């Protein structure tokens, strides 16, 4: 009888131990806590959050817990499942034991750890952990965190430099071993050339690292060395070292006559006369050949000669266009003046 009861007791104990072992050894997903402090465990990192979420009668079962949230951030940002979820005060040693870099230098996207009763972060008997959002030039840090019973949900705050270092520890993302390699002095601004004679700049951050380059600004109108057609007689101009177009070199007929200044160019499809002299002008000023007719590629519409008021327009056919129009106007003016003079003479008489 005694043997039986001993055997039964042994069986019960063994079963209990087995159950406990299974519970402990069970995969995290089996004990997953999918929501805590109003935050859903939606990130994918190969495993579910198995940290405990503090609960009470007031806030229900998902009041919040700093370790749950730190684990959650590591899953979301680092994309890994942390191997532990013990009391916050032990996270520094667990991190070291699992091969993570642990430093007293704060860094963005690290887990801060306060051991028990650290006055700088007012941690209680279980310590405290949270996530570092930003590190500023004065050494202060922005954090976000959950708490066990102290408050509900996520809160954000700022630790001053004295609190942030050296009393707190920081668990770095796997593969990141340092945060303080200086490439520059914070606040420095570096300017460089870009694009077509433009400038871009970048600012040195509080982490002594250069930030990204700004958009290229104040660019010129062309690429150094490029050429394009210009003027009215098939001229060309070259882009100068300052990324601005140089003078327009044009070829015009010998008999061309200069037109008044203008900035209205002819279309690229316009074909200049082949037997002209070389003319250099600013896009649209130059001689107008007597009797020369404008030539266009087939299918294009001729420009109204009246608009072509400058450059080597290679037009002015007699009896038509602006030339004749101007002549008519001058004649009218002359006629008007003569009329006035005649009227005056008559009055004198």
């Amino acid at each position, binding site marked *: 009888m005694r043997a039986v009861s001993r055997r039964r007791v042994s069986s019960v104990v063994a079963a209990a131990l087995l159950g406990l072992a299974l519970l402990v050894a069970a995969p995290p997903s089996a004990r997953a806590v999918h929501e805590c402090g109003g935050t859903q465990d939606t990130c994918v990192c190969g495993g579910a959050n198995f940290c405990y979420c503090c609960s009470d009668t007031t806030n229900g079962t998902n009041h919040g817990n700093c370790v749950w949230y730190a684990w959650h951030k590591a899953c979301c940002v680092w994309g890994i499942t942390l191997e532990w979820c013990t009391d916050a005060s032990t996270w520094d040693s667990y991190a070291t034991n699992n091969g993570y870099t642990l430093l007293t230098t704060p860094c963005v996207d690290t887990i801060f750890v306060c051991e028990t009763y650290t006055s700088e972060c007012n941690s209680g008997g279980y310590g405290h952990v949270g996530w570092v959002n930003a590190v500023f030039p004065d050494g202060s840090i922005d954090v976000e965190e959950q708490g066990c019973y102290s408050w509900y949900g996520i809160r954000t*705050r700022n630790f*001053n*430099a004295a609190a*942030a270092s050296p009393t707190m520890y920081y668990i770095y993302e796997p593969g990141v071993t340092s945060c303080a390699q200086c490439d520059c002095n914070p606040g420095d601004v570096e300017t460089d050339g870009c694009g077509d004679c433009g400038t871009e700049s970048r600012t040195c951050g509080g982490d002594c690292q*250069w930030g990204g380059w700004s958009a290229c600004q104040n660019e010129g109108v062309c690429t150094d060395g490029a050429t394009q057609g210009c003027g009215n007689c098939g001229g060309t101009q070259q882009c100068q070292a300052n990324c601005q177009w140089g*003078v327009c070199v044009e070829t015009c007929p*010998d008999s061309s006559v200069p037109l008044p200044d203008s900035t209205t160019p002819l279309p690229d499809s316009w074909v200049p006369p082949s037997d002209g002299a070389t003319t*250099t002008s*600013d*896009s649209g000023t130059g001689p107008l050949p007597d009797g020369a007719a404008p030539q266009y590629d087939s299918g294009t519409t001729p420009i109204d000669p009246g608009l072509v008021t400058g450059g080597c327009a290679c037009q002015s056919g007699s009896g038509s266009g602006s030339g004749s129009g101007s002549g008519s106007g001058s004649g009218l003016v002359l006629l008007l003046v003569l009329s006035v003079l005649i009227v005056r003479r008559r009055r004198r008489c």
Partner: protein
Amino acid sequence: MLYLRYSGRCSGLGHRFAVLVAAVALLLQGCESRVPDGSTAQLGRGVEQGGVSTDLVPAGPTRFTAATGYRVSPAPSPSGRWLAVAGLRGQGLYLLPADGGRERVVDADFRGPWRWRNDGARDVLCFGSGATADALDAETWEARPPCAPVAHHEEWGDRIHKVGGRTFYHNSRVGTVTVVHDQGVEMIPLDRSAWGAKVSPDGRYVAYCTGNLAKAELILLDVAAGRTQRLGTGAHPAWFPDSARLVYTAISRIERLGRAAMVTAATLRLYEVATGKSRVLDPTSGQTAQRAEVQPAVSSDGRNIVYADWRSGAIYRVSAPRKVVP
């Protein structure tokens, strides 16, 4: 026939005169800066004098530090003769004479809490944590009796102020300010994410921040009434000795650069408790090359304000206006 003409040419006397006028106008434009009210502020050329230099800044702020080393967290000594500053990321502790002169290195590797102690007429700098902190006489550069650590109570938090028989504590974990006086203990709940609480010298108000510095909001608590008032975006409040005004920083732009965050635009503002009005401390600050004016501190006589520029790593000093609304 060869014609040579140049784009943008100016022919005739009229054109030449116009070019001359335009050139003079451009020259004049470079010598002054227009401020929002339409008036102009003169700019001064940078000069070096001892350890103090003035850069191309409006007439108001004067650059307090030489262009060597990144300095933050300025704190005037009780007598106003010294200015303590920290190095980048709070590493290093330095002293600057308020009237100019060379910077003195207290400890280039120091990291941790530090504060001023007034030993009679002597300015003593306390630095270090633990049971006691080192104490240094700023004038003689001699060690003084160690400083006691900042008082801490497990429930109330750190002691932040003492005036007229009342002692103020701030617990940043649970977000409370506790006032201990002869009649008992009064615990005032703040926002759960309250930090950086500063009690006015007369003990009537507590200014504190909530949220991350990147999006901090400044709140004013009337201790007697237990009433809070949101002052808007702001951080780093600093009280004037008369408790009637405070200066704070309003951060307008923050960028994440690499593994840190950079405040790239911030302006100091002045708030007057009686009127509830605030204004930009230096109206010309927006006209200069983008400063990040943060961490203001008011001198003990209330005449000067020093602050850090997180863009350049320089410390500036500006005269404090007498009123918020002139």
